[in-house]
């Protein structure tokens, strides 16, 4: 039978598909070409490694099955899987069906898509013992069930586990509107294949969706694939600049809105347009404001929940860097007048260095506790802050002023090296994070290795080595707040709990460990005022009060100050708790 596979109604589909692939090709080629040389080398080196196979598997589990969304909420997962896997299988089975009925021959794209139209009058009975009609109908029903959930979600997101769903852009609305029509039109057209207007409707819906797609949130459908591979090959965004790779992350964001609910700025402080989904949207469409970039606690709660695994904090830092204008060196010369030569060189020889950091210096109870604990353990300590230690640099980094931050890092590194310490202990998780992520003290690259420990880890070690004996003072009930920089930031959850367990018992709040709430006063947010910070602290405070604990313990001097403003419970640092229990 001679088949032309042409009818007027296929034009919208053909145009849409052509635009879609032209735009996607243009974008991907451009972004890849602009990758820095180092990233390109990484791609070439790792392309033929096991990383690629792992990427393939991840494409299957994430782009088709959406495993991570299932973990957020099964109904939400079902909806995404129905669309992705259902549509994918419709295309694959549809292609096999074409071969089954028409044999090995060239069939243009529209021949596959509008198969039922072009094969009217043909016997659609089972081929090779397989009832393709039935399979395709079931698959279509599967997708339609996902669609029903999607429509329902727009009006009642709460039943799909989301208190709030994202607000849409014009491109999103167009694409979504078209998408809602695609499958019902397909159902109608295939049910009444002789009705040409139905085929026109189906083709137009597809065409509109494809044209709108690269300019809408549905760009994520394709973009997550290159993102997965590039990530597997070791390419990352950077805090210090915006990179070409960022485009893959930005456009892989489906604005699903899973990041909105965990955001405390939304929950407790009433900010509705700064969450990661909106930040990414604004940056993608080039209307990011300093306000949106700055209005984030960088607590990491959204990053932890992102089903696409986007580096949300890093992307935001990159934007802050761009928006902060030209490199600011010289604008504030923070290091002016600091004398690094005070204190004899080598005075910390083979010793433990202690870096209090500014927030601990502002919390003298912690400082005094540290002093007593070092004494009790018989540890001869070199005090960095007394010998010219400057700011760790993290506050500057968080505000996007990476040049000034690097100045601070250079000065401190030089100081640590001059004094020949072998271990650096800090009671501030903000300092700890920058020491671990940026200083590279323990790599041995530019000098002997210096081990960096948070005071909780150091205490746990002292206790394990028997250098610190603690006595129990009655049976005390503690609750513990995981500081963002310590928990999600540095992955330290157990050491503080071990210490609390050594002196009393611990009751956990409802959201704890990697899900822990931010104290609300993060240094990273330079856009909100004190009222919003206190509101967040109060919500967190209520959570801790509900545990029935007598004391709220934290391991960050900033969290300590912040929480004290929001709760009636006494708030103490781990060091203070230990100090009370020194034998």
């Amino acid at each position, binding site marked *: 039978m001679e088949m032309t596979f042409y009818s007027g109604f296929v034009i919208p589909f053909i145009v849409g598909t052509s635009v879609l692939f032209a735009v996607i090709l243009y974008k991907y080629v451009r972004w890849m070409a602009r990758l820095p040389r180092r990233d390109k080398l990484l791609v070439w080196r790792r392309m033929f490694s096991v990383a690629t196979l792992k990427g393939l598997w991840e494409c299957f589990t994430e782009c088709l099955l959406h495993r991570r969304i299932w973990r957020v909420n099964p109904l939400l997962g079902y909806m995404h899987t129905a669309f992705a896997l259902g549509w994918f299988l419709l295309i694959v089975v549809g292609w096999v069906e074409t071969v089954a009925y028409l044999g090995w021959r060239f069939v243009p794209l529209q021949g596959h898509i509008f198969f039922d139209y072009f094969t009217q009058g043909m016997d659609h009975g089972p081929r090779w013992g397989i009832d393709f009609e039935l399979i395709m109908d079931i698959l279509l029903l599967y997708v339609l069930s996902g669609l029903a959930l999607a429509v329902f979600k727009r009006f009642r997101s709460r039943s799909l586990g989301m208190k709030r769903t994202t607000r849409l852009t014009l491109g999103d609305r167009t694409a979504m509107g078209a998408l809602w029509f695609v499958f019902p039109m397909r159902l109608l057209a295939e049910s009444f294949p002789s009705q040409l207007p139905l085929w026109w409707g189906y083709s137009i819906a597809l065409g509109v969706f494809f044209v709108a797609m690269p300019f809408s949130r549905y760009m994520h459908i394709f973009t997550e694939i290159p993102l997965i591979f590039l990530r597997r090959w070791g390419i990352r965004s950077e805090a210090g600049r915006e990179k070409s790779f960022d485009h893959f992350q930005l456009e892989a964001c489906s604005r699903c809105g899973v990041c909105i609910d965990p955001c405390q700025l939304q929950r407790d402080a009433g900010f509705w347009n700064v969450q990661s989904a909106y930040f990414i949207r604004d940056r993608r469409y080039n209307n990011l404001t300093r306000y949106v970039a700055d209005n984030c606690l960088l607590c990491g709660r959204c990053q932890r929940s992102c089903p696409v695994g986007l580096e949300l904090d890093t992307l935001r830092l990159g934007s802050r860097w761009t928006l902060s204008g030209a490199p600011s060196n010289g604008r504030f010369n923070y290091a002016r*007048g600091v004398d690094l030569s005070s204190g004899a060189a080598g005075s910390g020889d083979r010793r433990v260095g202690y870096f209090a950091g500014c927030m601990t*210096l*502002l*919390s*003298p*109870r912690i*400082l*005094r506790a540290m002093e007593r604990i070092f004494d009790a353990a018989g540890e001869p300590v070199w005090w960095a802050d007394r010998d010219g230690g400057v700011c760790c640099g993290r506050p500057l980094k968080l505000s996007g002023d990476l040049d000034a931050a690097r100045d601070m890092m250079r000065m401190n590194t030089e100081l640590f090296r001059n004094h020949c310490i072998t271990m650096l202990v800090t009671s501030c998780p903000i300092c700890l994070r920058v020491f671990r992520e940026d200083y590279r003290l323990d790599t041995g690259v530019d000098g002997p290795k210096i081990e960096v420990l948070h005071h909780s880890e150091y205490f746990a070690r002292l206790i394990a080595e028997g250098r610190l004996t603690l006595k129990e003072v009655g049976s005390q009930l503690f609750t513990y707040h995981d500081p963002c920089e310590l928990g999600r930031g540095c992955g330290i959850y157990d050491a503080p709990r071990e210490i609390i367990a050594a002196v009393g018992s611990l009751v956990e709040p409802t959201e704890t460990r990697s899900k822990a709430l931010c104290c609300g006063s993060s240094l990273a947010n330079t856009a909100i*005022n*004190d*009222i919003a910070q*206190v509101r967040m602290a109060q919500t967190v405070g209520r959570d801790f009060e509900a545990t029935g604990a007598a004391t709220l313990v934290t391991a960050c001097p900033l969290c300590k*100050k912040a929480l*004290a*403003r929001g709760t009636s419970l006494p708030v103490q640092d781990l060091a203070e708790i230990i100090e009370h229990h020194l034998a």
Partner: protein
Amino acid sequence: MKKVAVIGGGPAGMQAALSLVQMGLAPVIVECSSALGGKLKDWHQLFPSMTPAHEVLDELTGQIADAGVEVMLHTEVEGVTGQGVTLAGGRKLEADAVVVASGFDIFDARLKEEYGYHIYDNVFTTVDVERMLNKGAVALHDGSAPRRIAFVHCVGSRDEKVNQKHCSKVCCITGVKQAMEMRTLFPEAEIFNFYMDIRMFGPGYEEMYQSAQQDYGINFIRGRVSEASPTIDGRLQIKAEDTLVGRPMKMTVDMLVLLVGMKAGGSNAKFSAALPGGGITLSSSGFVAPVDLFAGNVSSGLEGVFYAGTVSAPKTIGESIDEGAMAALRVAEYLKGRK
């Protein structure tokens, strides 16, 4: 005779009661502590005239006694309405009108942990200094005389970090006054005031500030103190920025005096919460909000409830007394209208 409940027996409450008696009404002062006088009881001398505080206190309490005003001591108030007040334990005190003169709280300096109050021995608040002056025992913890004293302005005032956005108004002049008192006690000491602004709003204040500099040799440095830490020899090292010179600075002192601010009275929130849906409303700083700051400055907006003194904002003692009289006048007008 119509009965008026006056909550609080400080200067504003006492003056309100006295004026109410003048107008032929029967005030009842409800005071939570053991004596009349409010915080005036703790003060030593009053700026700018250096009038001994007890003179003002004795004058007011004497008049109260002479007028035979009913006073209920040791009595907490839980709620306020235009028909009376609810006392602790649920007992009701019926009244035809209520004057809320429950005053302010003193900011807890421990919340500014960086200044080391209750951590280091020689960090005091202005309230501590007044008490020491009253006892005639101003000295360091070990009993010795300070050689260098620093006053820190705005501790718990104009400070978002501790939820105290407002200016407490009287601390600047208190800092000047106490510095001069310290100079009299310790002629050899160096005395510094670290300030953000010097707000000399009252009569004679500016003159006093001038005199502190010219005649008393007090140093004023514009800049906030960021932190205090102990030195090896048991003194205190403070870090600050001299914003006129534009340089950070460190100074070692023997005594650090924190000019603690006025915090909204703890009972304000209780009164406001007891009347959900209006009545007593609070401003963002937690002080009660009068109808307006002009002709309605002692009116609550709730029928029969009036304000006097620092319950509505930081005020001087003179201003509080003025408001006591004003509140009494408004109560009389209100009750006359009701007959």
